[in-house]
Structures are given as structure tokens and as C-alpha cells.
């Protein structure tokens, strides 16, 4: 029995897609910030990929210096508001909070971070003074979290920065690939605009950089390059029937539902293939949109899922059912997908094996593939000297973000293969410093 109505009424949708980390009130923020111990060499800060001085900004909130708190956050992380919302805080800062060791609820760091940054964005605080341009320019490919972060850091060092973005919007996955109950498009866009206003980088939308010619034009114009191009479309699983129109990729699905009206009916029976956080998001959103029966099918066992436990919990609460040790072998159906044929699996001596003769079909009206995203190999091939690792990721110097082609730097999903927004922000900023160091040494 479905928990939700399909299609949802507007007000139902508001409830089902209400933010899971809503903005705190002043009183909540005061009491929550009062609890922070102000640990020395704080574990939360150590756990943060961008090393935000968390005890400091919490104390600033507690002592009524909200602007100072936001400044502390933005000095370490240019996408402080986005990260406060979409970070898996349960396994990062909040997971490291010492209160966990006493079975006391950890400090609600993500929401306190949003409390401070949201206020700064709404009141248009200016935290950064951009120095006079130093005469050098950098092209950033991709306006996702890595690219934006790199651009801000470069502007802070006086470089002219142009960002080239294939889509018509910035923010990358934060905008297109993250569930709306984590962050809305308005929120993601507001922060990028807040940054653009004070850093003054240029963004060229609908400008895909792909061909050798594109690269040549840029190379003639800029002194250095940052590749923050993320990942491509969802990977194929290479099974029969995959090409059917109602067998789609998870990132494409999430992107679509973030832009279409909620009143669009969704399939009654949905099977999501995969066991990562994106699979959970896609499944959870189907259930919230009123699909009657949503199954996440993963080819390995439940403990082996890459999804965080709290993401699976969130999906289950929405009505999603998890099925494990099921490998898809065929998308069945005449012209459209009518079901998925699975075969049972087991792990023997660490090797996943299919159990012969155990195949069966689960009927469905929609198949969502959440088995990863492809690498943007076509662009890589057109940049001379880039080297990729065995997984197709750009190889970089971990301390500077510099690729094998010294004028090119990279960060984000294209380098790490697909991690959190906060990792992309950290890598973008690091590469900004790397580019500055590189160009300064050229003089």
C-alpha cells in the first residue's frame, strides 16, 4: 500500500519535500550553540574536508556575532550554506562530535552553519575584498562546487576568472543531482550569486568546452586552467533491454523532477538499481512523489551498500523497500520496460557469484539506474598531456591539484571519482592556491 498519493497535491508535495534540515530559529540556535564544548583541536574541524573552525563559529553564534560566524565559515568554505545543507554531517563533523562518545546527541553543526550563512546571504554581507587584477587570467571549466570554489580563491588572489559552464545554471550536482528536501535550487543559486557579487568572476553558461578547437581558443587566451567538470551521464549497466525509454539514469531523473511540476504523475511501480546515496535519493523521491511500490535492488548485501545508513533510513521512512543480493540481468518488456529480471547472488570468499537458475522477474513501470556516472573522457582526450588513473579519473598532485599538464589543474568528481560537495569545494580551493603558486613561479 502506498504511503503517498500519486500525483501529490501541491500542499502534500510541500510536506513530502520539506527540508530535512530546516532553518533554525534564533532561540534554537542560541540553545544549540550553548551546548558546544569548544573542544581544543576540535574533532569536528578535523573531520571537515574544508577545515571550518566549527567551535569558533558556534561560539560566535552563541555570543551574538552572526556575521563573524558566517565569515569564519566562508573563509574556509566558499559554499558554506550549500555544504551545511547537503553534507553528510552524520559521518563528518557531527559524527566526530565528542558528545557521541557519551551517547549525547551531537551538536547540530550543519543547521548552525546554515543559520549563520543564511543570514549573511540574506543581508548580503561582503566578507572578501578582491584585490586589483594582477594581469593574469584563468579559465575554469565547470561551474560546479569545485569550479566556483576555485574561482573564488583565484579572485581573492587577483586573477581574472572566466567560468565556462555547459548547462544554463551554476552549482553542478548541488543544483541538479541532490534531492530537493536537502537543498532547493533557489538556495543553491542564491549562494552562487552571493559569491559572484563579491568575487566578480564571469560565468558563461550554455558553453560546453569539448573539442580540440575549444581548447585551442582558451589556451590562447588564459594563463592557466581548472577542470571542475564533474561526471557525465549515468553509466550503462550493459544488460539487454537497457535502451527502453522508461529505463533512465538516476541523476537525469533527479534533475528532471527538480524542474518539472510535482503534479506530473509518476510510475506506480519503480525499481531503482544500485546501492549508493544517489540510489537512495532517487528511490526516496519516487516514494514521496506517490509511486505505490518502490524497490531499491542492490547486487550485494545490505552492509556492503555504499549509501550512508541515514540515507537508507530516510528512504525507508518514505516507503522504499530494499532488496539485496539481486543482480539485474535483463530489462524485460515489449517496447517499454515492464520488469527487471534478476538473478540472486552470494559472496563466496570475497567474490560475488550469481546463483545459477535463481533468476526471476519483478514487474515495474519505471527502472532507474543508479550505478554510477560516466567519466567525461571526450574532453580529457582533447587536452594534451593529461593522465588518467585506471578508474578514468584525472591524476593530480594531491597538494596542488596540478595535472600532468602543468597549466591544467583539476578537482571535484572528475578527480575523486564522485564524492561529496564539500570535497569538491576543498579541492577547488586547494587548486586555486596551486594555480597561484604555479603562475607566481613563472615570472
Amino acid at each position, binding site marked *: 500500500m502506498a504511503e503517498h498519493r500519486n500525483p501529490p497535491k501541491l500542499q502534500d508535495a510541500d510536506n513530502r519535500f520539506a527540508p530535512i534540515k530546516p532553518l533554525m530559529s534564533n532561540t534554537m540556535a*542560541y*540553545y544549540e550553540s*550553548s*551546548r558546544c*564544548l*569548544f*573542544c*581544543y*583541536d576540535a*574533532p569536528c574541524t578535523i573531520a571537515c574536508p574544508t577545515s571550518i573552525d566549527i567551535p569558533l563559529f558556534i561560539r560566535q553564534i*552563541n555570543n551574538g556575532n552572526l556575521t563573524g560566524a558566517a565569515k569564519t565559515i566562508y573563509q574556509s568554505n566558499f559554499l558554506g550554506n550549500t555544504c551545511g545543507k547537503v553534507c553528510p554531517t552524520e559521518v563528518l563533523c557531527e559524527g566526530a562530535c*565528542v*558528545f557521541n*562518545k*557519551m551517547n549525547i546527541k551531537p551538536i547540530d553543526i550543519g543547521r548552525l552553519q546554515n543559520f549563520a550563512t543564511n543570514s549573511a546571504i540574506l543581508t548580503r554581507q561582503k566578507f572578501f575584498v578582491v584585490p586589483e587584477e594582477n594581469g593574469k587570467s584563468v579559465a575554469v571549466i565547470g561551474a560546479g562546487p569545485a569550479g566556483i570554489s576555485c574561482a573564488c580563491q583565484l579572485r581573492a588572489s587577483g586573477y581574472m576568472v572566466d567560468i565556462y559552464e555547459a548547462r544554463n545554471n551554476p552549482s553542478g550536482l548541488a543544483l541538479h543531482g541532490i534531492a530537493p528536501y536537502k537543498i532547493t535550487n533557489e538556495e543553491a543559486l542564491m549562494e552562487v550569486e552571493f559569491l559572484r557579487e563579491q568575487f566578480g568572476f564571469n560565468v558563461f553558461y550554455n558553453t560546453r568546452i569539448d573539442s580540440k578547437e575549444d581548447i585551442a581558443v582558451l589556451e590562447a587566451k588564459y594563463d592557466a586552467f581548472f577542470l571542475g567538470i564533474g561526471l557525465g551521464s549515468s553509466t550503462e549497466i550493459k544488460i539487454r533491454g537497457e535502451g527502453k525509454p522508461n529505463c533512465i539514469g538516476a541523476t537525469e531523473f533527479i534533475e528532471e523532477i527538480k524542474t518539472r511540476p510535482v503534479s506530473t504523475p509518476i510510475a506506480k511501480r519503480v525499481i531503482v538499481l544500485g546501492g549508493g546515496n544517489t540510489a537512495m535519493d532517487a528511490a526516496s523521491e519516487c516514494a514521496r512523489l506517490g509511486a505505490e511500490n518502490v524497490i531499491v535492488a542492490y547486487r550485494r548485501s545490505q552492509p556492503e551498500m555504499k549509501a550512508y545508513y541515514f540515507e537508507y533510513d530516510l528512504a525507508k521512512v518514505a516507503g522504499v523497500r530494499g532488496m539485496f543480493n539481486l543482480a539485474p540481468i535483463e530489462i524485460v518488456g515489449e517496447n517499454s520496460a515492464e520488469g527487471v529480471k534478476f538473478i540472486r547472488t552470494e559472496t563466496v570468499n570475497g567474490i560475488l557469484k550469481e546463483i545459477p537458475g535463481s533468476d526471476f522477474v519483478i514487474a515495474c513501470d519505471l527502472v532507474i539506474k543508479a550505478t554510477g556516472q560516466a567519466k567525461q573522457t571526450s574532453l580529457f582526450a582533447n587536452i594534451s598531456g593529461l593522465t588518467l588513473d585506471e578508474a578514468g579519473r584525472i591524476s593530480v598532485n594531491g597538494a596542488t591539484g596540478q595535472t600532468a599538464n602543468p597549466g591544467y589543474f583539476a578537482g571535484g568528481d572528475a578527480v575523486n571519482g564522485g564524492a561529496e560537495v564539500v570535497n569538491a569545494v576543498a579541492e577547488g580551493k586547494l587548486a586555486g592556491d596551486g594555480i597561484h603558486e604555479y603562475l607566481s613561479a613563472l615570472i
Partner: protein
Amino acid sequence: MANLEINFAGIKSPNPFWLASGPPTNSGYQIMKAFDQGWGGAVWKTLGVPVINVSSRYGAINHRGSRVVGFNNIELITDRRLCDNLREMEEVKKYFPNHAVIASLMVQTKQEWHQIVNDVQNAGADGIELNFGCPHGMCERGMGSAVGQEPAILEMITRWVMEVAKIPVIVKLTPNISDITEPAQAARRAGANAISLINTIQSLVGVDIDNFVTYPVVENHSTNGGYCGPAVKPIAMNMVKNCAQHPLVQIPISGIGGIENWHDAVEFILLGASSVQVCTAAMHYGFGIIRDMTSGLEQYMDSHGFATIDQFVGKALPNVKHWEELNLKYSVKASIDEDKCIGCQLCYIACEDGAHQAIDLNEDKTIRTPRINEENCVGCNLCSLICPVENCITMVRKDDGTQHQTWKQRTDANNIPVTFDDDLAGGLGHTIPDPVKAFGKL
């Protein structure tokens, strides 16, 4: 089963918890309600020639999520007519003949004192408290703390009262004085039956930093108030102890100042109080807190084998000494329970920056439990006080208990540092890091 009844200088009360003179005892209605819920007594909001009060009147200190840890008021004595108060007082005594009703009084002339003492006696009051403590407003008119700060005048007025008093008289003292025992002795000399302390401490509770005026704000201005609430308890307890230990005071003491639970009350009693008075906590939480107070006190007395309050009044007094009488050979060192440690490292930075650099971090940063450097640990307690985990850091005795040497003994034996660079300096032998090592260290 513990018996909570007291006989305080002749005033009988079913338990030692009295409401102090203040807003909660402004009317018969409030006092009846308090008695109904279990309070043993109430000191009526100070009676006198009625005043006209201002609005606003109170200010408070909040500390990291705790509201009203300190409280400040600029309210004066009763603004109600004496006849109304007396009528209600009679009414309360009719319903609660066995509860203590004490009339707090503040007037100016001898004639007024005589008249008002007679009035409250006729209304059935069980005792009288002379308000010589109020440090705001009334003192500008020569009353309240203006009297409490002048022992000779306090003594004179108390004598006026004693001339006509047929019921026990308590003199309420102001803490706004350098030696609290002086007015206490004056009260004793004048024949008062008891003293109560402390009244509020003259204070400015805060400043509105945008409008440049202190709190509480009356239009664009403010004035000093009287400070009370949990934050004043340590000051009050020290003054109670000073009076209780003084050989020329030796009359019953009603303890006041920041009491909000049974534990606070026990502390005051152990330091010499034989009744306690509560105002701020009742203003904060209502009269219902009395249920926790009486239950906790009973539990404490039962677990310690005290049948009556008298059995432990002043029991801590013999152990409160002068510094020079403390044993210099006693030695404790901090000890961290690794199983309880949550790795906040607050003890490390507190000792490193605020004490004696006696706590070290592990070289392996993934191990967050700090280590005590016993050689440098002076046993100051700081780490154990700031540690957020109950009983994680304890202070463990290290000397064998056989040696006893006080500063007084060392002074008598000419065995103390007397020159600036004396080799007898106590800190000699502690490892103090080189000052330049401070650079660049978080």
C-alpha cells in the same frame, strides 16, 4: 524519618524553607498559595509607607543557555496600603496558624517603628524582620542598606524595635559592606533575636550596548539595582559563615542568597543557617519547587542519619579555617579515566594556557586522551572542574598523610620565603617552558 520542623529563635515552622521578602510575598493570596504547596514560612514583602514603583524593574544574566543565573531588581518595598496588608496577614494566620509569617518592615522615625511593630503584632505575625539591606532606591531615602552600612544606626533602630517587640526580631543585613560581622554584632548588642543575610548586592546587571544605558531601562535611563539569584550564593555563604563563626554574633541565622534547591539549603545549614529564605527561584519557577526542596532535604537527612535540622546546623564550620592553617604537605594530582574520556581536550588547553602546563597530548593525534604530567601537576583542580564528563578527571591523593605542616608553623619556624629571590619559593622545581616556545603554538 527526618523531621523538618524548626524553631528559629522562637519562630516555629513546619520546615526551614521560607519565602524571602520580595515579589512572591507581595500579597496574602501568594503566601496562602505557597503555604498550600508546602512552604514553611514567608517573610512578607517589606511593609512601610507605600511606595510608587517604576516600570521596568528587573534585569537578568543568562549564561550559555541557562536563563537568570543572576537577577537584578530596582523594585522598592510594598506599594500597597498597610491596612490591606495587615488584613491579609490576619487572614493567612487564620488558615495557617502553624506556618511562620514574618513581617519585613522598613520605616524611618522611632514613632513609625513603634507603630508598625505593634500593627503587625496585632495582625498575628510570628516574627519581624528589619529590612536594613535594600541597596537601591530606599537607601537614597536613608533607609534599607543606608542603615545596614552604619552599625551604630542599625543598633539604635533595632533598640527602638526591641522596646515594643513581643515577637522574635530578625535583623536583615546588607552585603554591601566590607565586614559583615560588624552590623551582625551591632544587631546582637541591640538584643535582636536573629539575623538574616544576605540582602541583594548593589549591581548593574548589564548595559544595552546599542543605546548606551544599563538594564533595566526606564525610558532612556536606569539606576543600580540589587543583585541576587544563583550567582550570588558563594558570596552569601561566605558571609553566613563569617557571622556564624564570630564569637560576638552567636544568634540564629536565616540564610539567604541564590538558594534554589535542597542542596543549596543544606550547604547554608552546614555553614550555620537554621532557616533558609528563597526568592529568585520562586520568581523563576513558581512555588512548586518546594516539593523538590523538602523531598531532597528529607532524603539527605535520612541518608546522613540526621533526625532534626538542628543536628547539622553549622556542621561544616569547624572545617572552614584560615589559609595559614591548611596542610602544605597534602598533595593531590589529577587522574584521567581513559574509559570515560571523550577527547575534547579542554583539560589540556585549560592547563596549558590557564594553569601549569601539566597535561600533555599524545604524539599520535588519533589518540585524543591527554596525559597528566604528574611532576608539573600542582593539584589545582582546574582540569577536573572544566571536564564535561562526570568523574572522568579525579584528584587523587599522593602524599601518605603522615606529614602536617602549615604556613603558620613554617612562619613560626622561620622557614618561609622572605626575599624576592628566595630559594624557598614554592614554585621552584616546576618545569616552566621557555617563553619563546609560545610563538606559533595554538
